[in-house]
């Protein structure tokens, strides 16, 4: 059972913030090892290298990558008439192939650490997690074991390729029935539930959106602007929902624990308490409260709509913000906090 999980959300170029956070984490705790790493979208691009603790390469990629390294822009109308996405994502696919080689994959699966990528299947609408190792069932999601290096690279790309903007990916090429996958952020911004279902007790979540929604004081009059703003609202809402359910779960567990203490104080025996609280089918049976560490920026990070603007200078700023945000988070931890302290 996993005990420590790292969950990295989506956000395109804003992933530089996550790299800054991780840089701070590994500087403070070089011995820290996550049992499971879950990535969505840009988080899926980061997850394997974070799992391999290759921070220099991550930092290089997230401070030098430009739009041309990720996608090819075209004529919007021509793409609409002839293609399945606004952008051509082949540069990003080439980058994935360059760094996530066959030997990288062999090394990844030789370790016990599990790495999972969140995707959504266009045919079935299901949330599908592609994982390097077998994992336990996940609530409201399917899991698929990656079988080889090619599927591994395709799963990373599937998680990273935002639908409409980039092409859907067949993780298993020419599979029957056909299955095309897109960015898991369509349904789940961060794979917190997967970490909980794997029994993680300490979950370290890096989000790329601020807790307070960004207020933009302007009139939206262009269709493209309204479309992008709607996407931002949608992504924000998915992010809120992702954290609301685990939060409610934690609150319910805390409530049950308090009830148990009250019953004990009222003179009931452990046997009586168990008999009353252990209802068949209870989702809270044999569950412990999960410690969720949420690291997120305190304001907008930039990076354009959907994080589709890769500006190295701006990304360096995001990385620095991630670094300082993590330092601030650690400074605010109680002295007896084992994790990260």
């Amino acid at each position, binding site marked *: 059972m996993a005990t420590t999980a790292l969950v990295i959300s989506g956000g395109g170029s804003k992933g530089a913030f996550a790299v800054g956070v991780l840089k701070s984490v590994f500087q403070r705790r070089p011995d820290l090892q996550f049992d499971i790493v879950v990535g969505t979208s840009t988080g899926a691009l980061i997850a394997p290298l974070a799992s391999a603790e290759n921070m220099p390469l991550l930092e290089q990629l997230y401070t030098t990558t430009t739009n041309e390294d990720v996608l090819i822009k075209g*004529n*919007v109308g021509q793409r609409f008439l002839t293609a399945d996405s606004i952008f051509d994502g082949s540069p990003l696919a080439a980058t994935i192939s360059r760094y996530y080689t066959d030997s990288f994959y062999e090394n990844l699966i030789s370790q016990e650490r599990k790495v999972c990528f969140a995707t959504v299947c266009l045919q079935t609408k299901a949330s599908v997690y592609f994982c390097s190792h077998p994992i336990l069932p996940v609530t409201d999601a399917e899991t698929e074991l990656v079988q080889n290096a090619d599927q591994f690279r395709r799963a990373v790309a599937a998680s990273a390729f935002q639908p409409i903007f980039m092409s859907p990916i067949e993780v298993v090429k020419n599979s029957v029935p056909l299955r095309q996958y897109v960015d898991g952020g369509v349904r789940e911004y961060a794979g917190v539930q997967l970490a909980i279902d794997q029994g993680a007790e300490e979950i370290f979540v890096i989000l790329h959106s601020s807790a307070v929604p960004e207020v933009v004081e302007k009139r939206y009059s262009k269709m*493209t602007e309204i479309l992008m703003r709607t996407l931002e609202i949608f992504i924000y809402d998915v992010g809120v929902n992702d954290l609301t359910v685990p939060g409610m779960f934690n609150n319910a567990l805390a409530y049950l624990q308090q009830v148990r203490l009250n019953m004990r104080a009222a003179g009931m025996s452990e046997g009586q308490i168990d008999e009353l609280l252990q209802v068949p089918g209870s989702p809270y049976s044999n569950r412990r409260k999960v410690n969720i560490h949420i690291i997120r920026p305190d304001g907008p990070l930039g990076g354009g709509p959907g994080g589709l*603007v890769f500006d190295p200078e701006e990304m360096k700023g995001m990385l620095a913000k991630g670094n300082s945000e993590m330092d601030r988070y650690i400074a605010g931890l109680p002295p007896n906090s084992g994790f990260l302290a």
Partner: protein
Amino acid sequence: MKTYLDHRVLLPWLALSFCFCLAFCSVPQLSAQDKSPEFPKGFTGYLYLQQGLVSNFQQDSPRHYQVGLSARPEFTLVPRRLRLGLQAQVLNAKNTWQYQFGPTASLRLADWKAGVFGTAANVQLTAGHLWGSYGQRLIGGGLQAEFFQAVALSLSAYRDYGQQQWWLQTSIGVNLLLKKRAESTDPFD
């Protein structure tokens, strides 16, 4: 008849001219860019429906209506900048069916950007030399706006330097060589 022809030909010509001027002067996104997706490698093949007038614009000289079809295949010689090709047109002018044929060139001047998504259109300078079936020798060019790399609106002015006539035209074209929708666009292939 002359007034009728003037309105039918000159008004669209002036309207298109106005649109081109407006596009050049008032749209801030309209700018040449180094990594433009416009003028990609390969061929274009526009089929135009065109109309215009033929005249030497001397006082009391006749102004003849012309209407016809024009095919213009071009190859991108310098990606993002220059296309060269041929033009063949069949038209009715002076109540006579005739054809014209010759080389053409298109020089990309600017793009109309579509925010962070790419471009929506480009504006190009066109030029050509045509030989006609009635001994015409036309040289000239014009401006063309190409939308979605699929549809073009153009206006052109050619001078028949042999017969001292002006040929003014407005055209709407469709790119018959627009690539077909791919069933699969696998970025790993």
